[in-house]
């Protein structure tokens, strides 16, 4: 972790990323703005100040680099924006999101050869297993870099997550940091109503993980959380960050409910959203 970019600068980048998100989903009139906006600060910090990576020389094997896997692939808008803003692909390409012949598929994929993407995701619950595999390969390769994954809280309802959680702790995969986006919402409503997740801290602790918490919409908290998480790697256990976020963060009318999980803004709503998000790096 470089820890070299100021909080103010990261917030400026995050504002542009949020603009990209709402413009992308507006542009194709589909996609998932809510979770994307909620995870913007996390992904901005991750790609601009945490990952040891080389955007200009992307390689699938990622040897000698930190790796990130987006398990909740539906928040592809924030992923694509951050990838483009950190140099993996031309910013102009964001306008092709979800359109025919684009590399920016509705859910991320390796199928179109998009730099920065090492796994297809969208069908939920699979990314933690993939992250474990990549982390095991790093150990075999004597590569001391880290593997990061991101999951939705609703995604934890998938059984495979807990198969993977058991494996990672049981087999000491301690070069892995899994973050759970706790926004409390899923498509059909609040997670507490759809399928209560219970005491998640206790669950991850019981499975044998280091567990820490952070506020995913406070850049200083995110920075402290990453520093804490990284300091706990290499000590025999995998690390879980429980990250509280607000779905739709940054756009007032998208916050506070599940309504904006997977619908795009109309022209008027786009204008309202953009008025709340200063353009800092130049729109695509």
């Amino acid at each position, binding site marked *: 972790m470089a820890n070299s970019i100021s909080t103010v600068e990261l917030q400026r980048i995050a504002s542009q990323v949020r603009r990209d998100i709402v413009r992308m989903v507006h542009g194709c009139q589909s996609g998932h703005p809510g979770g994307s906006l909620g995870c913007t600060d996390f992904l901005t910090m991750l790609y601009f100040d945490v990952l040891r990576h080389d955007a200009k020389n992307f390689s699938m*094997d*990622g040897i000698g680099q930190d790796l990130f896997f987006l398990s909740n692939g539906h928040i592809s808008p924030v992923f694509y924006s951050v990838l483009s803003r950190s140099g993996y692909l031309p910013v102009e390409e964001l306008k092709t999101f979800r359109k025919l012949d684009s590399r920016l598929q509705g859910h991320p994929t*390796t*199928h179109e050869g998009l730099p920065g993407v090492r796994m297809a995701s969208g069908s939920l619950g699979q990314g933690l297993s993939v992250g*474990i595999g*990549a982390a*095991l390969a790093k150990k075999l390769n004597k590569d001391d870099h880290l593997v990061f994954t991101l999951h939705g809280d609703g995604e934890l309802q998938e059984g*495979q997550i807990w*198969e993977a959680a058991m494996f990672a702790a049981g087999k000491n995969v301690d070069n892995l940091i899994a973050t759970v986006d706790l926004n409390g919402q899923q498509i059909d409503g609040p997670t507490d109503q759809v399928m209560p997740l219970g005491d998640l801290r206790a669950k991850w602790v019981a499975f044998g993980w280091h567990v820490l918490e952070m506020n995913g919409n406070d850049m200083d908290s995110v920075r402290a959380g990453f520093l804490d998480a990284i300091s706990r790697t290499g000590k025999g256990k995998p690390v879980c960050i429980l990250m509280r976020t607000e779905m739709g963060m940054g756009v007032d009318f998208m916050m506070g409910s599940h309504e904006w999980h997977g619908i795009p803004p109309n022209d008027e709503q786009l204008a309202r959203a953009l008025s709340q998000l200063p353009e800092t790096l130049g729109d695509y």
Partner: protein
Amino acid sequence: MAAYPILDQKDTRSGFGAGLLELGNRDERVVALCADLIGSLKMDAFAKQFPDRFFQVGIAEANMMGIAAGLTIGGKIPFTGTFANFSTGRVYDQIRQSIAYAGKNVKICASHAGLTLGEDGATHQILEDIGLMRMLPGMTVIVPCDYNQTKQATIAIGAHEGPVYLRFGRPKWPVFIPADLPFEIGKAQRLVEGSDVSIFACGHLVWKALQAAEELAKRNISAEVINVHTIKPLDEEAVLSSVRKTKCVVTCEEHNRYGGLGDAIAQLLARTLPTPQEYVAVNDSFGESGTADQLLKKYGLDTPDVVQAAESAKDRAQIVAIRDNPLHRL
């Protein structure tokens, strides 16, 4: 005739185990994963010799497929091992997204396929797996016929770039493929040359097809036996050149009649060379408990079934020949 004497009696899964061990010695990128079936999959030797490259994942096949996909990202060549049912149907979406769609170099190695699993019964006797795997874009599907060929195939897929489904079985079975017979992915093997009927078979049923060809010879029917060990990509030229000559087809597989080898060949022929075809396959049902031999007999996958299918196919070809003869249109 006996062009293929029985060299030994061995299970195909042991061929997998032997091939995996050899591959492990040859290539340190090869890693293996197993979901609590090390003994059944004959992975003991690899696990013992390469403990750092072997991962016991417990009874969690979905997780195993995801971990295997992730291991490829660090340049590893993962071989997963469990029963065919748990290698396919149970984890179809994991294979579809994290392996096939993502284009990952995972080798899905599946034992105890089909009826010859025997006494465990229908819950474990998957008869749909070839179809499931064949439908996935980019998936190579291989069903070797005996111990020697399973060992060869295991080694061959290690050098093949891309996802592979390798299907083999539980029972001791005649070993009849000479260890030095070249094996090439996607290249069918003509084991017996004939002119009256083409018998295409895979897996354990190749032996039944050879037995049937001997019986057919006694009845003055010259059967050509082709071992289609690679079902996808299908060796289209091998199929077509045989069928142009014989003008009738029998397909033999330890699989449901839907989706397997028979359908792969029927689809090719429907597009290019419509030909009478008889299926020796399970007639859209689940299996049951019993010995391998009892089950093959009960479900119509035994040597006499192949003989009968060949005679039916030949009769149908003669009817077609009469119908298509210009003299009969007068």
